[in-house]
């Protein structure tokens, strides 16, 4: 049968130039080279709410923030063993992302599931950042291969292994998909719109539940029976 056309594949530095990012289109496939750091709610709360200083200089060392916690262990001598790495869902970090982009100078936010085009236009575009999504999302073993070295781990005691800030050296690490571009367009939203157009047909012959759930809308006066 006819094979689907292959998306375009690009290698990108974790300290990209604006021109590098401008050349990317949503749906392109990217492989990363350079240093990447992990950071999620634990790190955001410490830095943005607790006003702790950053433990490394950003974006000089890296402009790539990965929403991830690796499957990894640290032995008594501080040696790090990295297994697989997989992103965590980014929509939960919406309330911190604007401040974080300003403070960290991050140009690449890497995670699972993307954020809204509202977040992109409001926070990403003014800071010249784009969003890369991991693939699958279970391609942890492939991504693990792209990590040449776990360089450092910050706030391990304070935040635990999963929430700590890991600094990792990437080489040809990927695949990632360009989810948002410098104009704030979202690949997921484009695809969702196409899928939604089909739903009417799929739902034909089904019927809504006889008992509704309270709280599904903001109208507190809703009757639940129909």
């Amino acid at each position, binding site marked *: 049968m006819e094979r689907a056309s292959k998306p375009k594949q690009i290698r990108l530095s974790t300290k990209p130039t604006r021109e590098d990012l401008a050349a990317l289109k949503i749906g392109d496939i990217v492989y990363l080279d350079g240093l990447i750091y992990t950071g999620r709610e634990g790190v955001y709360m410490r830095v943005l709410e607790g006003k702790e200083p950053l433990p490394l200089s950003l974006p000089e060392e890296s402009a790539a923030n990965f929403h991830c916690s690796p499957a990894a262990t640290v032995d008594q001598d501080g040696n790090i063993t990295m297994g*697989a790495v997989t992103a965590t869902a980014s929509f939960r970090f919406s309330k911190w992302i604007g401040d974080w982009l300003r403070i960290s100078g991050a140009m690449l936010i890497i995670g699972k599931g993307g954020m809204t085009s509202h977040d992109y236009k409001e926070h990403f575009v003014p800071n010249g950042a784009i969003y890369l999504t991991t693939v699958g999302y279970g391609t942890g073993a492939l991504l693990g291969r792209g990590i040449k070295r776990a360089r450092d781990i910050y706030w391990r005691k304070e935040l635990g292994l999963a929430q700590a800030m890991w600094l990792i050296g990437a080489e040809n690490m990927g695949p990632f998909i360009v989810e948002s571009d410098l104009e704030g367009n979202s690949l997921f939203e484009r695809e969702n719109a196409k899928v939604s157009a089909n739903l009417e047909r799929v739902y034909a012959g089904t019927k809504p539940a006889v008992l509704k759930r309270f709280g599904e809308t903001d109208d507190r006066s809703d009757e639940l029976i129909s």
Partner: protein
Amino acid sequence: MISIDAIQKTAETLMEKAAIEIPEDYLDGLKAAADVEDGDLSSFVLQAMLENYEAAKQDRRAMCGDTGCPRWYVKMGNEARIEGGPIALETVLRRATANATRNVPLRPNRVHPLWRTDHDNNVGIGAPEIEYAFEPEGDWIDLVTVHKGGLFGTDYRMLFPSDGIAGIKRFYLDSLVAFGKRGLACQPAIIGIGLGGSKDACMVLGKRAACLRTVGNRNSDPRIAEMEREFKELGNSIGMGAMGFVGKSMVIDCHIEVGYCHTGGMQMSVHAFCLSSRRAVARIHGDGRVEYRTDPNWFTDYQRRETVEWNVLPSLSKSA
């Protein structure tokens, strides 16, 4: 008597196998989906996944960085005897979970729900879950570990008889679309549906339907088997593929399990066992032999029995 050391050793091997080796039945199902997928991005994702499983096996590395929440299903033949009894059994399953978290390594995912305390070993209050079942014959113990991932692939709803099959279909589609947008539940998945029981039993049935039956396996009730086929088709006709991109691979297979419920209700739960459909099984026999497999063979006729007595055994049927 089954030695407790053998149980711990086997359990540690199972933890590693589950995290690293995708079960053959799911892999074949995913390959079949990849063959018919024509959405360009969806296709790319499926190819990447197939490469990922290879990389995991070659490197002996967990297939997904989110190694899920390890849990145990234990089944015993009626004649099985465990050295040290059930307390020793539970201790070594907890030990194996903690050891494997360090050695594979797995991600220490389990934390206290309020205080977020993390022992960095996937063990804590109620973790790992250990569930039990029994079979009428045999001196063996089956250990099944499932490393279920995904915070986004489960839902429950109380339906009523008047909702009927049309209502079941509606909640099934609602769930799949909700799980599938932006691929949060990492489809294509094995979808398990629980029908009936009570709320808690319904959740248990649906989860077991997703995690403990293999791709291609059908319910022993022919009418339910037919629904499973139809629901698989229906899920794949949504127009959504991997990661929520346009495509047709949403459901690798659909399994339905039922339990008798209150006469006024029809509970329904839906569970997605993700791209990392991690399960590994071993049988340890009374004589110490260990056999590894990936099919839990959980839902036997005995597990689905409807009768008061269990009369299938020849010895018992004579006295019945």
